[in-house]
């Protein structure tokens, strides 16, 4: 997927780059963001380094107001502690800050999502006899339910975008409609799923994920083919604005610094 190159004027960018840039743009300046490791952390830090210098990044390991200059490989990197406004205990993060209702945006990755933006990071196959055992819940169930809204970022494929999840680790809109509100979940839920092909947002009534933006050079058919259900397409479908040169530069600088510091670029909890 990363090999996909699109020509838009002079700029070239990968599918992962436009995914990251598109995700970063959704973070408003001043937002308090609870950041998952990996793609969410890249996007959130890109936002901070571009249009949202006052975004507040909180990691579940304890740093509040982290301003890393290289991306953390794990959720508890020293860089997060050293650049934070303060570091509190992990229980405090979950109790006072997340459950306390002080998080505007939860920024999550996922192994799988379904048509109602529920998330699976637990298991593929049967829980007791797993086909693939995934890492598990981590902070996601409570981030997904307690942040005022949620952005999910992951690459799109039929393996990842399934009609019905084998296991709901973290709630999106459950069975759709007002099921989430009826279950008493405080946060509003996933506002957008940002992929390497486009942006999906929940229908205001049914809450079914609907394609509302395709990335430049991607066709609707490509997105549908990468989705495990009959993906609805918004009548107001737009094309994602191309990454601007300062965004791409900031992203590439960040990744280059990170690779230099770590010798790798991904990230995970732990």
């Amino acid at each position, binding site marked *: 997927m990363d090999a996909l190159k699109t020509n838009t004027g002079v700029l070239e960018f990968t599918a992962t780059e436009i995914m990251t840039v598109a995700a970063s743009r959704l973070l408003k300046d001043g937002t308090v963001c609870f950041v998952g490791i990996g793609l969410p952390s890249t996007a959130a830090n890109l936002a901070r380094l571009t249009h949202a210098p006052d975004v507040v990044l909180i990691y579940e390991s304890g740093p509040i107001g982290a301003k890393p200059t290289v991306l953390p490989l794990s959720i508890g990197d020293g860089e997060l502690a050293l650049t934070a406004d303060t570091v509190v205990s*992990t229980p405090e993060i979950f*109790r006072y800050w997340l459950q306390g209702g002080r998080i505007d945006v939860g920024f999550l990755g996922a192994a799988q999502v379904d048509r109602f933006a529920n998330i699976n990071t637990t298991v593929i196959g049967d*829980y007791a006899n*797993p086909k693939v*055992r995934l890492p598990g819940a981590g902070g*996601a169930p*409570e981030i997904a*339910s307690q942040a005022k809204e949620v952005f999910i970022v992951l690459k799109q494929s039929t393996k990842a975008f399934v009609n019905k999840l084998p296991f709901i680790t973290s709630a999106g809109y459950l069975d759709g409609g007002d099921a989430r509100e009826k279950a008493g979940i405080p946060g509003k839920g996933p506002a957008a799923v940002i992929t390497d092909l486009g942006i999906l947002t929940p229908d205001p009534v049914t809450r079914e994920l609907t394609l509302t933006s395709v990335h430049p050079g991607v066709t609707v058919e490509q997105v549908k083919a990468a989705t495990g259900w009959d993906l609805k397409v918004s009548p107001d479908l737009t094309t994602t604005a191309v990454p601007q040169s300062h965004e791409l530069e900031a992203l590439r600088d960040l990744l280059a610094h990170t690779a230099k510091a770590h010798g790798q670029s991904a*990230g995970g909890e*732990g």
Partner: protein
Amino acid sequence: MARLTPLHEAVSDIIQNGDTVALEGFTHLIPHAAGHEIIRQGKTDLTLVRMTPDLIYDQIIGSGCASKLIFSWGGNPGVGSLHRFRDAIEQGWPRPLAYEEHSHAALANAYVAGASNLPFAVLRGYTGSDLPKVNPNIRFIECPFTGEKLAAIPSIRPDVTVIHAQKADRRGNVLLWGIVGVQKEAVLAAKRAIVTVEEVVDELDAPPNACVLPRWAVAAVCHVPGGAYPSYAQDYYERDNRFYQAWDAISRSREAFTAWIDRHVRNTADFEEFKRVFAETTKSKEAV
């Protein structure tokens, strides 16, 4: 009251077969040296508790020391799967591993409840998740004032908690800083605690309101410089991200794993010897 003691004595005296043991540290200050000593001494039937069973638990589980795991995220951070953990869960090798699975928020609260000597923790959580369907230790209670429904889980009260910290003074008072995770709660939730430290000093010189564990809240303090490696100790050394990546290949097969554990852990006398052997094998590998 903390004794300053060698690590092998602490593990031998304080951790019994069948104990519930928590080794905590959230990326930072993970007590790897103590984990190795558990393997070296062939402890068995342990119930392991840890929010993020990463390399340290992959090693202990793969070595057959554990019969149960309580956890909330099991992976090699930034790399991928924990192969020994998955092999134990999926194939029962080297022995079946029962497991009880929670969210981070729930386990963090369960440690707080344990430290507070409460039998259970209350949280807003798990709503809409399938986890309560597969974990009978996730229940729901009603607020006696508002009628609101809230999740409840049993508190964690380990027999032994093991952590790594930056400093202790000669009397056994412990100071840690940076990402402190759930370490204080895990220590205070436990019946007995072992703390390995980078440095033993005359005076802690703790800043106001620092994370200090007084000597009388800890059973043993062991001076093990580098004892968090390949995790990190803020202001001492950095995380060895390359080893986390290398672990993926080492742990992928039972044979490679066993050979690595035998050579580096079972056949070394202590963490000092581990460090020497590890330096040699790493150098020779890089030379290839």
